[in-house]
């Protein structure tokens, strides 16, 4: 099947998902990000790679934090950044998603960073750009529905590589609401592509998608069994709205069974790292003693995220 993320030369032209990307491209992104880490430490934190280019942050769903990290990354690449918080208002005015895109193309956009509540929306945009012959415009998915959040997945990979060097001997656990998590899906594909031998998913059946085993994941309902001897623990945010349906009885019961406490973390390897895509719910999925503890690498994740987003934007815009 035609992979809409790659151009005819097999190079990355859009970043839509970590699924289906060759290992060499994932590694290229991580290596490029590593070279950008030094830029952020400089007094003048800029490189001219995207000078004269316009990056449009198209957030159909609000997220100040993710949008800000993309904005910082684009500015460090010397791009012009235009932030559009579209929310649901333009659709309410009757304009379709693709009408919006056509308008922005006419404003000479070079790169769209897209966040959308519907799974697959960035694919629709990339497909539309191909159809109208605008191969010069690139799309970076900043989170679509439950589907993918590839830059978060990649910054997670960067973090793991930073602390563990090698992917080929790791046991990684992802804990919590995997069903609704685009981060989990992006992590799973990236981890398996990069050669992690054991990826575990831990959560109650109500928060796990069917057929996770087909994605190469081992499922655990018992957190203590699932954490045993892990090198990396990725905690997922539990959205408040998950408490209203029949998915979970209460935040308290969730925390007792699936919250990461120091006692449970002790079952993982002594040098295990704890990650979280943020924003955290302390006392719901993670105990403060763990969130603020020595094994947590949650703030370095944020720093790495800027370098990873710089890498992704410079690579797609260069291809």
């Amino acid at each position, binding site marked *: *099947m035609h992979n*809409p993320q790659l151009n005819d030369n097999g190079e990355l032209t859009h970043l839509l998902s970590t*699924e289906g990307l060759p290992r060499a491209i994932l590694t290229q992104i991580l290596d490029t990000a590593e070279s950008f880490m030094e830029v952020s430490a400089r007094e003048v934190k800029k490189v001219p790679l995207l000078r004269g280019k316009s990056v449009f942050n198209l957030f159909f769903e609000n997220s100040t934090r993710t949008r800000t990290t993309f904005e910082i990354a684009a500015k460090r690449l010397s791009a012009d950044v235009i932030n559009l918080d579209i929310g649901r208002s333009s659709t309410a005015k009757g304009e*379709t*998603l*693709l009408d919006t895109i056509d308008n922005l193309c006419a404003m000479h956009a070079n790169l769209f960073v897209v966040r*959308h509540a*519907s*799974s*697959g*929306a960035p*694919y*629709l945009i990339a*497909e*539309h750009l191909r159809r109208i012959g605008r191969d010069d415009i690139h799309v970076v998915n900043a989170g*679509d*529905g*439950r*589907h*993918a959040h590839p830059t978060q997945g990649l910054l997670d990979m960067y973090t793991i590589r930073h602390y563990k060097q090698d992917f080929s001997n790791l046991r990684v656990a992802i804990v919590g609401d995997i069903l609704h998590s*685009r981060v989990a*899906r992006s992590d799973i594909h990236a981890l398996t592509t990069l050669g992690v031998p054991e990826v575990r998913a831990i959560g109650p059946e109500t928060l796990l*998608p*069917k*057929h*996770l085993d*087909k*994605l190469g994941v081992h499922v655990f309902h018992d957190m203590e069994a699932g954490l045993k001897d892990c090198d990396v623990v990725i905690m997922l945010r539990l959205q408040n709205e998950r408490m209203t349906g029949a998915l979970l009885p209460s935040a308290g019961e969730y925390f007792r069974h699936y919250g990461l406490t120091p006692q449970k973390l002790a079952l993982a390897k002594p040098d295990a790292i704890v990650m979280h895509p943020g924003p955290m719910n302390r006392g719901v999925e993670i105990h403060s003693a763990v969130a603020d503890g020595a094994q947590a690498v949650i703030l370095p994740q944020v720093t790495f995220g800027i370098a990873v987003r710089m890498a992704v934007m410079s690579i797609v815009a260069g291809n």
Partner: protein
Amino acid sequence: MNIEIKNGRVIDPKFAVDRENTSLFIVDRQIAALGTAPAGFVAEQTIDAAGCIVCPGLIDLGARLNSIEAELAAAVAGGVTSVVVPPDADPPLDEPELADRLVHRGEEIGKARVLPLGALTLGLKGERLSELAGLKKAGCVAFSQAKAPVVDTEALLRALEYAASFDFPVFLHPQDHWLSRNGIAHDGEVSARLGLAGIPVAAETIAIATIVQLVRDTGCRVHLTRLSSAAGVALAKAAIGEGLPLSFDVGVHHLLLTENDIGFFNTHARFAPPLRTHDDRAALSAAAAAGDAAICSDHTPVGADDKLVPFAEAKPGATGLEVLLPLTLKWAEQAGVGLADALARITCAPAAILGLEAGTLAVGAAADVCIFDPAANWTLTPDALRSRGKNSPWLGYPMTGQVWRTLVDGRVVY
């Protein structure tokens, strides 16, 4: 008018007729003879069907006619001479006057026959019964909720009891409201991968189990529409085996496609019910091959803008009237089903479900005839379709089998 259709291969699956190079004679809108002309026959019109197959006009168990003129033209262009129209129009077909108007409009247009399904409940809300006898009198061939659920099981029981009192058949789409209301795709590997909310197979099996029990209790004749799963087929077959007055059909797209055809969020592969797994497709195909299931187009014209949106926001369904025949032929070839058997699923099998003396070329039958070239190749493009619905997962694909002439009631309408 007296018409001779000569030199064709005449296939009438209902009576196992399959004759090469034969003439079919039509007198006064009826089939008058096969092979030898009736005494005194003088042809006013002769149609040379050399190289073509002459078969009964297709009967489609489900097609939406959003823009009725275009869709009825599409029907006859696809060899479909009778179209069963579900009641989920705007407004829903829940009053006799509406059914009456639809039937008359169909007659005015003079293409395919329009066979409306009346709304089982007012506004398809699943609460209060429509005037079923009045709707029947206005021309409704059966009653249905289209794809709207009857959430209240007591209301469903009462509806089936009432319909059974008049021996009215009821078409039901088995889908549990609660398990399907938020779903977008089959609850399986692809939905897990793409992050699409799932519709489990249990949505279908629970609904079938409920309906089967109510059929057992009421004796109402029920036709289950658009089954999508192997487990659903097994339940329906078991109920039929028990002797219950039950039948079922499958949409032709579900015989050929699976959840994998969603690929990277291809909105043309969004269907209701959803495309499911290879095993489900195989079970649907086996049921159609064995003659347990009829095949229909489930024709759903959707505007281009309603497919150029993110997958979850796209309207489900595909255009079907003009691809029912070529897709059925494609399925038959893949499934190793003979031509006559394949044609039976879209002619006499739906006629039997509707209790109509149609779907045959027997002497005395209304002259509804489809003449098609089984070897003609064409490419499905928007321009090739008369339907307003250009929405198809097959756009750009080659099709084999093209309708050349269609007769309805002894008139050449295509």
